[in-house]
């Protein structure tokens, strides 16, 4: 079905050509008529070829044909005696008339063909150009949603329908399987009406019309996007007017688009698979680290308990008390680990909500020390804070946990009885006040190359000392407050972990 636009174009061209030819014929007739007795019969025959050629070139075959008939009549009536009639007397004149007719017909035919060939060549060139523009959009390395947008906008610009929509199977959008339901994945041009949308995305069992709308207005064209013999999607153009060749062009473009969409989908699948593998690997590392951390206190609890239960061993009362104390401490350690695990789950699930309140530092330290009472003896902890330290504006549960983790690490990794120092000072600007808090121990310290890694969730340095969750959780909680946490690189003896948290600015100075 040639579109109306193309149809109109053809008519208009024929009409223009015919008028031009007729006008030329009229003019030539008027010019030649006064001299007709002085002219040979060949002259008007040749002259009347001119309007015919004009007609063919401008208006195509039919304009040429009309011009030829009129030219024939003019020639016969006005230039072949007896003038004013169709009658021809001299046999030579018959011959002239016949030759004129043949020449006119041949010229018309040849010119028409040339014309058509030239049109065809020009159109092919245009098509190639448009296809190049269309496909240009498909070869870039872009994500699938951008690609879909690109396809519909390109089609919209190239064919100017009322709207263009690209439908993909709903399942492909969600996970990458095949499903019967189609969803509009991208569109361009005017908004789709609700009815149009329903007619496009009707589910299984519902009748979906892709044909003419009621009333037979020029309607919808749907092209299936097929790649590797598998339907990829459906490209729908609403109220589009097509020339015959546009159809082929759209088809070719649809094939390219299908390949591009398929490629993008495959790429997404590869990415998704890689992500899953990464998650699996991470989960494995996590399980390893968690079981290591849980097993360590369990090992000493079990060793202690089995000693206590064994008959025939000479445990002194002091030994007995020591073992019991050890069991209690290790149970506390296990409990702390479980708390950390729960905190980690909260961070992982994104359920971490910071509820800031105002709190002085010493109160926070007391709270943290209470949480690790068994593990960190109070007399080992020394607090050194400026007297004008502002109030902390923090979620005391979370930051208390941070401090508790740091204290527990410090106590576990440094010699018994060695001091653990908490220092705090005000930093930042009056507009953005922060407090810097640090926990320093006299343990073996942290090697320079480990200083970043210790904050990673489940970084395992060869099953070594500072593995596990404590620092990773501290980092997550501090960062949730907009602060930072790091290992002081300047410290040579022991380890010093520093973190910053928000504080209350001017109010503290008035207080």
């Amino acid at each position, binding site marked *: 079905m040639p579109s109306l636009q193309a149809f109109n174009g053809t008519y208009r061209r024929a009409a223009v050509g015919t008028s031009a030819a007729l006008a030329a014929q009229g003019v030539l007739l008027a010019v030649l008529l006064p001299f007709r007795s002085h002219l040979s019969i060949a002259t008007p025959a040749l002259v009347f070829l001119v309007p015919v050629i004009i007609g063919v070139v401008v208006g195509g075959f039919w304009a040429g044909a009309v011009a030829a008939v009129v030219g024939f009549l003019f020639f016969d009536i006005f230039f072949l005696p007896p003038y004013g009639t169709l009658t021809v007397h001299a046999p030579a004149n018959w011959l002239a008339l016949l030759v004129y007719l043949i020449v006119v017909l041949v010229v018309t035919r040849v010119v028409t063909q040339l014309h058509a060939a030239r049109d065809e060549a020009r159109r092919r060139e245009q098509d190639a150009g448009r296809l190049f523009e269309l496909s240009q959009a498909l070869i870039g390395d872009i994500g699938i949603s951008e690609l879909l947008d690109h396809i519909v906008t390109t089609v919209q610009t190239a064919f100017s329908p009322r709207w263009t929509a690209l439908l993909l199977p709903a399942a492909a959008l969600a996970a990458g399987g095949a499903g019967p339901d189609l969803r509009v994945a991208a569109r361009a041009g005017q908004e789709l009406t609700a009815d149009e949308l329903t007619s496009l995305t009707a589910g299984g069992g519902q009748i979906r019309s892709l044909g003419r709308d009621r009333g037979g207005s020029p309607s919808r064209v749907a092209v299936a996007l097929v790649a590797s013999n598998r339907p990829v999607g459906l490209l729908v153009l609403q109220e589009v007017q097509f020339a015959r060749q546009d159809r082929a062009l759209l088809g070719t473009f649809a094939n390219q688009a299908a390949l591009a969409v398929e490629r993008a989908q495959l790429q997404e699948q590869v990415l998704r698979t890689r992500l899953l593998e990464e998650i699996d690997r991470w989960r494995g590392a996590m399980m390893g680290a968690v*079981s*290591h951390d849980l*097993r*360590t*206190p*369990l*090992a*000493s*609890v*079990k*060793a*202690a308990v*089995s*000693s206590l239960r*064994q008959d*025939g*061993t*000479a*445990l*002194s009362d002091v*030994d007995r008390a*020591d*073992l019991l104390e*050890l069991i209690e*401490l*290790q149970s506390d*350690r296990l409990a702390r680990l479980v708390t950390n695990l729960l905190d980690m789950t909260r961070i992982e699930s994104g359920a971490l909500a910071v509820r800031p309140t105002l709190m002085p530092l010493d109160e926070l330290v007391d709270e943290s020390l209470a949480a690790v009472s068994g593990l960190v003896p109070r007399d080992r902890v020394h607090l050194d804070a400026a007297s004008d330290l502002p109030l902390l504006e923090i979620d005391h549960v979370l930051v208390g946990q941070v401090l508790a983790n740091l204290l527990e690490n410090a106590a*576990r990794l440094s010699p*018994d009885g060695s001091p653990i120092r908490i220092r705090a000072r005000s930093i930042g600007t009056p507009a953005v006040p922060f407090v810097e808090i640090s926990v320093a121990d006299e343990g*073996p310290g942290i090697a320079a190359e480990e200083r970043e890694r210790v904050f990673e969730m489940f970084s395992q340095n*060869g*099953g*070594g*000392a500072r593995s596990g969750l404590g620092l990773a959780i501290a980092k997550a909680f501090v960062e949730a407050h907009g602060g930072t946490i790091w290992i002081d690189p300047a410290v040579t003896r022991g380890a010093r972990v520093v973190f910053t948290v928000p504080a209350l600015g001017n109010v503290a100075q008035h207080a």
Partner: protein
Amino acid sequence: MTKVLVVDDDAALVKALRIGLTARGDEVATAQSGTDGIAQVALFRPDLVILDLGLPDLDGLEVCRRIREFSDVPVIVLSAYGDERRKVEALDGGADDFITKPFGMAELEARLRVAVRHSAARTGNGTEASATLRVGDLEIDMVHHMATRNGLAIALTSREFELLAYLARYAGKVCTHHMILKDVWGPGYGAESNYVRVYTHRLRKKLHDDEGRLLRTVPGIGYQLVADAATPQQETQ
């Protein structure tokens, strides 16, 4: 009294082991790092080393290798569950036995005693070791290639004899499949653990040890020839 060196970085476990082992009459020294552990082996001259594989400074396997450079002291490796590969590496690297955390003191004590006794036997009959090996009621005459159990001769093929002699030479030590193949079958072997399975099965038949109490299977790891078949708990009483 056994002199035991415990090398582990977890202070709590070290403390529990020290109290537990001391109460049994052992003399205990401790080290919290690999370097310290190696030094203690030289200074303290323990009868046995309990070595954790996860140490802060040196890898446990490395510690084991370095101890072997100058000492034959039996080494029992502490490992985590599921760490089979490192266990095998440690045994190949010279460790005598392993124990998986968490463990009870009775089990540790039993492993400890097996390792110490066999090590004493190995060094004790050093002069005649080349001629006759004794593991419990089993006697292996290296000169005449003959084995007897309770004085009764056992007819063995030469490969069976070599396997038995090898396990007897390392009595008390867990020998991995890899070690057995390499040393008994030859350097070209190492992965054909089913050969070992077939031969140990035949050996057990001939030794009348169908339950594998003398020739113990260590699942997934290898085999161990143990002098007395009695369970450790019974022994303690």
